[in-house]
């Protein structure tokens, strides 16, 4: 599969700049996730790649070939939508076979059968092939919908929130399956979601979008550990990063322009104040089973930290707060490099 290049794509709807000067390359065999809130331009970007929208500016290329003016049918893409749309009167088998039986493809029924069975096996729906689409559960229907894209071997799969209509448990299962299938097929996927867990767990790389602009592009770990601004820092991670005013920790060494300090919950270390000096008071402990979230009041600000369920701390305890690997942001929310590490931080 060739790489797909998006070069300076822009698209405006009336006064709304949906996508602004967006450039990125989806590498062969990569699962690239576009992450952002509603209105960030994710779906529009996907539709520009598919050819369902025409850009005001910029180009779409695959394997070096300029596809910007090509209609969707000649782009060799497969699209999976959020709402599964199956043919209710057809069996699962016929739903999966449908894209392969298009007259232009001239595929033999034996080849169709082989392909359908392979995909059904990958998706664990082999025993459902004879069922009507309407007899399936929501999760099975969405698998069939994904399967209908996978039976083809397009040069790129475009997926628009394919898991968002499923319940939490099923979503967690399909997340893993989709990633496994992507690896087994070596498929190139451009995947859109507003769910940071999906992005973190599935992506080869994540592109964070904000109001039509690509704000950061990198592996999940790079973006989690090295966010370029406070919006990106807040977007990834659950529980979300603590963002507190600089003045809350006056003794912490920080660049002069620092307005906000960001610190991940796992990077806040607390211990019971022994000598009477204290920085915060434990306000509340959330028992989430696998971890405790301790809410520590520091002045008027609440700092959340992960605690060992057996720490022995209780509400009302005075604690000292230490921050490991804090992030510094200026008045605009942009990340400030730490002096000593300037070369290492982007």
């Amino acid at each position: 599969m060739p790489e797909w290049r998006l070069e300076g794509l822009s698209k405006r709807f009336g006064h709304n700049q949906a996508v602004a000067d967006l450039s990125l390359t989806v590498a062969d065999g990569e699962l690239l996730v576009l992450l952002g809130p509603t209105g960030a331009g994710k779906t529009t970007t996907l539709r520009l790649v598919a050819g369902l929208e025409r850009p005001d500016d910029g180009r779409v290329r695959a394997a070096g070939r300029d596809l910007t003016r090509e209609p969707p049918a000649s782009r060799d893409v497969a699209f999976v939508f959020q709402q599964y749309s199956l043919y209710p009167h057809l069996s699962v088998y016929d739903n999966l076979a449908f894209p392969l039986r298009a007259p232009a493809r001239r595929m033999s029924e034996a080849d169709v059968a082989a392909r359908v069975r392979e995909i059904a096996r990958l998706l664990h729906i082999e025993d459902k092939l004879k069922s009507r689409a309407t007899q399936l559960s929501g999760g099975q229907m969405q698998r069939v919908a994904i399967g209908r894209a996978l039976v083809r071997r397009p040069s790129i799969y475009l997926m628009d929130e394919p898991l968002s209509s499923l319940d939490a448990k099923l979503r967690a299962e399909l997340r893993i399956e989709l990633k496994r299938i992507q690896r087994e097929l070596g498929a190139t996927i451009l995947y859109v979601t507003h769910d940071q867990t999906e992005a973190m767990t599935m992506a080869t790389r994540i592109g964070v979008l904000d109001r039509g602009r690509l704000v950061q592009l990198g592996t999940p770990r790079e973006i989690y550990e090295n966010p370029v601004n406070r919006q990106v820092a807040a977007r990834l991670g659950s529980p979300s990063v603590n963002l507190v005013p600089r003045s809350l920790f006056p003794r912490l060494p920080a660049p002069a322009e620092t307005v906000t300090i960001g610190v991940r919950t796992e990077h806040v270390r607390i211990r019971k104040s022994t000598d009477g000096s204290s920085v915060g008071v434990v306000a509340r402990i959330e028992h989430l089973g696998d971890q405790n979230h301790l809410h520590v009041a520091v002045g008027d600000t609440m700092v959340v930290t992960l605690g060992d369920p057996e720490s022995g701390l209780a509400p009302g305890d005075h604690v000292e707060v230490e921050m490991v690997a804090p992030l510094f942001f200026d008045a605009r929310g942009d990340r400030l490099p730490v002096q000593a590490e300037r070369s290492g931080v982007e």
Partner: protein
Amino acid sequence: MAEISVHNLHKAFADLVAVRDSTFTVPAGDFFCLLGPSGCGKTTTLRMIAGLELPTSGRILLGGEDVTFVRASQRDIAFVFQLFALYPHLDVRANIGYPLRSQGVRRREVRRRVEETARILRITHLLDRRVSGLASGDRQRVALGRAIVREPLAFLLDEPLGALDAEMRELMCGELRALHDRIAATTVYVTHDQLEAMSMADTIALMNDGAVEQIGSPQDIYDRPASMFVADFVGSPPMNLIRFHGRIAPGDRSVRLGPAVLAVPEAREGIEETDLVLGVRPEHVRLAGDAPLRAQVLETEYLGTTQIVTLTTAHDAVLKARIASDVTVRPGETTGLDFRPEKLSLFHRASGRALRSALHEREGRARA
């Protein structure tokens, strides 16, 4: 604020038993979550407490008074269906004051209580704004204000955050709990989302198929699930349930799983040879290179704080481990597995109930 207690509550709709013989007490000032999958009877239970449904049998006491057959409007309870139901043409002040004015409370008193409520919710600056122009979070605060302003004996909330996206839900969970900490109102909260229940509740009643399966603090339910259903419903990812065949004698401190002998909390009851299930939470699984229980890595999911590793054991059990995110694990590689012994649960597979042990001192509840 008042205690709510429910005795042998039963509700049947024709052939369908929605709630069967449920008994529980919500202490005054408690944040109590009715948790369970759809169709488990949690909403029907809430509607009976509110007086919107009448029970087939059983009793409901509110502050010690039997209200089983008292009309909904005569029970001093605020029911919040959807936090979004506001009067769009009125300003925030009029929306919050509405329930008081309709009760004929004097204007000066309405004004005082609306302002007090706005102060608690920290929306004083919005009082003279139109509701229609507000951000969704602020609209929810206003809707809450309308419930609080009446100062009822209890609040009942039915999946109030169901329609929100994940980010907003996390924020509102925090606010609801903080609000509860300030006014300490008896609250019964219905949800199917275990994370909401775990993060907000003082007490969780987990319902399944019309019956209360377990009642306890979030930590208690998480650490000591009374049944396989609870073990599987609570936690994300849920507890690993590993099937094996064996027998347990009182005092046993280990079980045999294939080639591995695993330490477990001391058994407090015995069971003849049968199908058993070992329950282990993902964070209590450790990857230990040379341990006798072998497994192959299927997949890893990076979550920032931690990572989830999916593994298959030699006898085809699929397990998930939650480990630190700085450990490098690759799909395909083989590793040994180690479990934290003092955190393990054992279940009788046919009934689903937890066997009593040093960890599970109390009797597990058998499934009908």
